[in-house]
């Protein structure tokens, strides 16, 4: 079984997690830029974080045989802090990088005017850089947040079929599906979705454009939830092809819209240290 976790914050996870994820079948992931629990107070602190998502973290992932890509953005929560908003001006130099496969996570947290501005500006940046966008839906007042999100997307230059709306649940899936976006579901130990409810949603709405993620981070979460959903799907009568579609082909298709996915990571132990051999005097 091959698994692509389309939303996981590996910066907050240990090497044991990487090992367990590989053993469970995870071969690729996307790490969206988000907040870190502790608020940041300057753009420079974001740049170090973005650089880690484009440097150290892919190196860690590669050591465990996992392809690591990222999405870059100013997250909605910190978009409300004027000390952080200059980050948006620096995003263009990050959005051209090879490993950046979307703009994200953007969206709403408390639905403020500052969040309106940041969301619209970053949807435009996605359109300008020919990237799709990962848009999360707020934890509080979720349905109203989804509707406002869809309105802003419709007014933007980015077509809705290049948008992944994330953290969906039973109350928001239908409107997101009717709008024509990609549908993301985060499966958590306590909150958001669980495995069995996820299977029910797949029964009701089908696997088309559905992506399932662990959204694991520094809070109570589980990086193996993708595999548990796969197992629950098989136990619930879905075929292996359905599982492959939801947990591999759909995320590959969505992030593949960037034209930047590189999924051929060598298996652990065979990673080269040499880079391009021609530059070291070999052909």
């Amino acid at each position: 079984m091959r698994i692509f976790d389309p939303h996981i914050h590996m910066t907050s996870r240990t090497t044991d997690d990487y090992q367990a994820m590989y053993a469970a079948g995870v071969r690729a992931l996307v790490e969206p830029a988000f907040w870190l629990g502790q608020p940041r107070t300057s753009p420079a602190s974001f740049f170090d974080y973005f650089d880690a998502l484009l440097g150290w973290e892919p190196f860690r992932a590669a050591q465990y045989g996992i392809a690591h890509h990222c999405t870059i953005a100013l997250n909605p929560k910190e978009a409300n802090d004027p000390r952080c908003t200059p980050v948006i001006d620096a995003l263009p130099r990050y959005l051209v990088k090879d490993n950046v496969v979307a703009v994200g996570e953007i969206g709403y947290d408390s639905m403020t005017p500052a969040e309106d501005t940041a969301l619209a500006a970053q949807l435009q940046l996605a359109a300008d850089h020919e990237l799709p966008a990962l848009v999360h839906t707020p934890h509080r007042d979720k349905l109203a947040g989804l509707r406002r999100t869809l309105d802003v997307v419709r007014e933007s230059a980015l077509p809705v079929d290049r948008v992944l709306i994330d953290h969906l649940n039973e109350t928001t899936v239908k409107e997101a599906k009717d709008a024509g976006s990609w549908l993301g579901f985060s499966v958590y130990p306590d909150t958001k979705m669980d495995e069995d409810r996820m299977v029910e949603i797949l029964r009701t709405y089908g696997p088309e454009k559905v992506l399932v993620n662990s959204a694991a981070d520094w809070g109570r979460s589980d990086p193996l939830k993708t595999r548990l959903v796969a197992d629950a799907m098989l136990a619930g009568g879905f075929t292996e092809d359905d599982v492959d579609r939801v947990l591999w082909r759909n995320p590959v298709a969505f992030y593949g819209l960037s034209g930047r996915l590189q999924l051929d990571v060598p298996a652990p132990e065979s990673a080269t240290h040499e880079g391009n051999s021609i530059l070291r005097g070999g052909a």
Partner: protein
Amino acid sequence: MNQPTSLTAVRAHLDTALSGAARAWLDQALAEAAAATGHGDEKNPPVWELRFAEAGRRTGQEHADAARVVLLHAARADTGTLARLYAEGTAAERRAVLHALPHLVPGPEGLPLVEDALRTNDTRLVAAAVGPYAAEHLPAHAWRHSVLKCLFTGVPVDAVAELWRRAHGDTELARMLGDFAQERTAAGRPVPDDLQRVLALTAPAPPTVKES
């Protein structure tokens, strides 16, 4: 071995290895780099710098280092530009800047980039840092630590340029290697094969016997 590969050879290799579309992209990017004047600014970087960033998805990961190095050369990137591209670069871009140093920076001005890479634990950066530029310019203490770092992190010492020339007769390096071997032995861990190889290289040459 490990002399800087001539850029003519790198270019020739790319010409045969790249697909038609990738080769056309590189030709265009090289023309843009050669025509570039001035440095641009944060909002409007020269277009070749965008090409430098996107080389991986245009040429494929296995050719990206080489494509980026010939681009830097075509743009005649100076030390300031190289330092900025390194600072703002992904790990892959940083690696390409390190590979380009011996071709573009004749003096020791590029050493801060090598030292930065040697402080990381990313073995791909460490391997790129100990190339011909480090062999030429890295001071003795830092160079010895770079060799030790390769042994620690599992970077094959074949990556260290001019290892024989710099290790030859280096009694301080020999001491450091001996201490490291002892530490490993005390811990019941194997001593890396590469350590013995380098240790052998530190021996001074046997005195030349005069023919009678």
